[in-house]
């Protein structure tokens, strides 16, 4: 079984995240970059399958800037067998459509039985790339899975929508995405970090993947940001220390504000 895990580099959610007012793009230089936590959980799904199924091959794949190298190395240190980095200046500012096209081409070149992604990134938060990739590849997708059960020829799981939970399955090859309901990822250990240095690490340009941006992205409606405005920061209001009557004081505050 060959499992490819899609990972994305995002600004650390613990820091302040900013947008470039001119382009509306995320200011990636302005904050620390990390692998999105949800993608580490996706990798954990693959690695735990590998733990119990010898002969499983796990590939981490990312499209992004030079900085992605660090994240992919971490994936290798955690236990992935190889890494693929789609890196091309033409992809700067790529929207979801371009991203999906590039990832689909990269997946075609790596080959796979199962693709696992995080359900939505903490920066874009679109949650659409996995299904777009599946459509490009003509495969079934199951997104937002809260449990995953991989077997030799199919993948099954449950997903919760706003109104209920569905039990679903798809034949392999397929594309899935997972939610935070799945376990946190393991930490890389020393042996993993050392062996990561020797693992295959492929950097592929669009040309290497057989994509001519002028052709492949022609006619793909592209989203553009017109304007980005920062909301004024919230400020602290009244703060009191409870001296035995804070509950009553809070009730007074709510009444005064017509909140009760």
């Amino acid at each position, binding site marked *: 079984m060959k499992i490819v895990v899609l990972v994305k580099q995002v600004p650390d959610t613990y*820091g302040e995240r900013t947008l470039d007012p001119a382009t509306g793009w995320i200011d990636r230089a302005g904050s620390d970059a990390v692998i999105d936590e949800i993608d580490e959980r996706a990798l954990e799904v693959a690695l735990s399958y590998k733990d119990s199924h010898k002969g499983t091959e796990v590939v981490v794949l990312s499209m992004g800037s030079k900085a992605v190298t660090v994240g992919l190395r971490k994936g290798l240190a955690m236990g992935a067998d190889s890494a693929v980095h789609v890196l091309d200046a033409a992809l700067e500012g790529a929207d979801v459509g371009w991203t999906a096209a590039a990832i689909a081409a990269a997946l075609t070149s790596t080959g796979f039985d199962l693709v696992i992604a995080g359900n939505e990134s903490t920066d*874009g938060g679109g*949650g659409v*790339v996995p299904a777009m990739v599946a*459509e490009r590849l003509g495969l079934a997708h199951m997104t937002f899975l809260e449990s995953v059960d991989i077997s030799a020829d199919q993948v099954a799981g449950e997903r*919760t929508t706003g109104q209920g939970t*569905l039990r679903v399955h798809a034949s392999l090859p397929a594309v899935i995405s997972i939610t935070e309901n799945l376990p946190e990822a393991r930490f890389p250990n020393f042996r993993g970090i050392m062996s990561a240095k020797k693992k295959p690490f492929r950097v592929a340009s669009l040309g290497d993947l057989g994509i001519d941006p002028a052709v492949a992205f022609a006619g793909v409606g592209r989203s553009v*940001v017109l304007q980005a405005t920062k909301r004024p920061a919230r400020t602290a209001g009244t703060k009191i220390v*409870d001296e035995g009557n*804070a509950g009553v004081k809070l009730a007074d505050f709510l009444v005064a504000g017509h909140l009760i």
Partner: protein
Amino acid sequence: MSNILALIEVSSNGDLRDSTSSLLAAAARIGSPVAVVVTRPGAGSALVERLGNLGAAQVVLAESDQAGTLLVTPQVDALAAAVSTLAPGAILTVNSVEGRDVAARLGVRIGAGLVIDAVNLRSEGLTIVATHSVFGGAYTVESTVQGRPLIVTVREGAIEGPADAAVPVVTTVSLTSDARNSAVIDEVIDLVVTSTRPGLRGATRVVSGGRGLGSPEKFALVDQLADALGAAVGASRAAVDAGFVGQTCQVGQTGVTVSPQLYVALGISGAIQHRAGMQTAKTIVAINKDADAPIFDIADFGIVGDVFTVVPQLIAAIESRGKK
């Protein structure tokens, strides 16, 4: 006015989902709303009158034996077919799990650009402009897509409905999807609705509890205050991870984003990822033992104190006022 397709979500018992009113209102802002509904044969006609009341000028009933058994494929096929017959200016779906899946596949299939999680829509000449609230409301961003049509997923409940009622023109089409490239729905395990409380999304008041509540039993204090205020119940990720409450209650970066009139945070430190889901609330109240908790930086009314003494007193005060 150009046709605007709106994919209507139907629950497993065949009812229109709550998102319908808001989605048709969004469509009405930029054109003539066409409701596209996928149901099993015969099940759609019962929905037509209500769709009209909610603003649909046209209704396309796509009937498929595979509705409810193939995961989103019938919906994608129904919209793709409606795009070719109705030449819409835009296609709207709810920014739900299904809505995003459909938008994603349709976008690739018809080569249309995607605008995700719009909180408002307007037309400027031939351009459709979407507004987004980014990084938990820290930024407001306006975007559009080059080329037509565009596909927009609209945040649940962000645009208030209903639009003006209409008597819709109805078209019925029958649909068979290629099952080979689709996931299969084996079973629908519906959420057991045990509460009469308002839902979190779109609630005007929210009371959330964090790790500070200590245990699932003690989390009942959050429920009690929520009921006294007529509020929805929310939680921090730490409270969800600790099993105090289900994941659907999580507020924040990777949970639900709420924007209520009143948000009460109990025993929540106010981590940046939690604030990302609630900082646009009109009024924020926080109760926390730790005077330095970051939640106080954004609270309109903060109490440094123990939730287990302050909250019961607050509930008693609310209840005694109610009796007056």
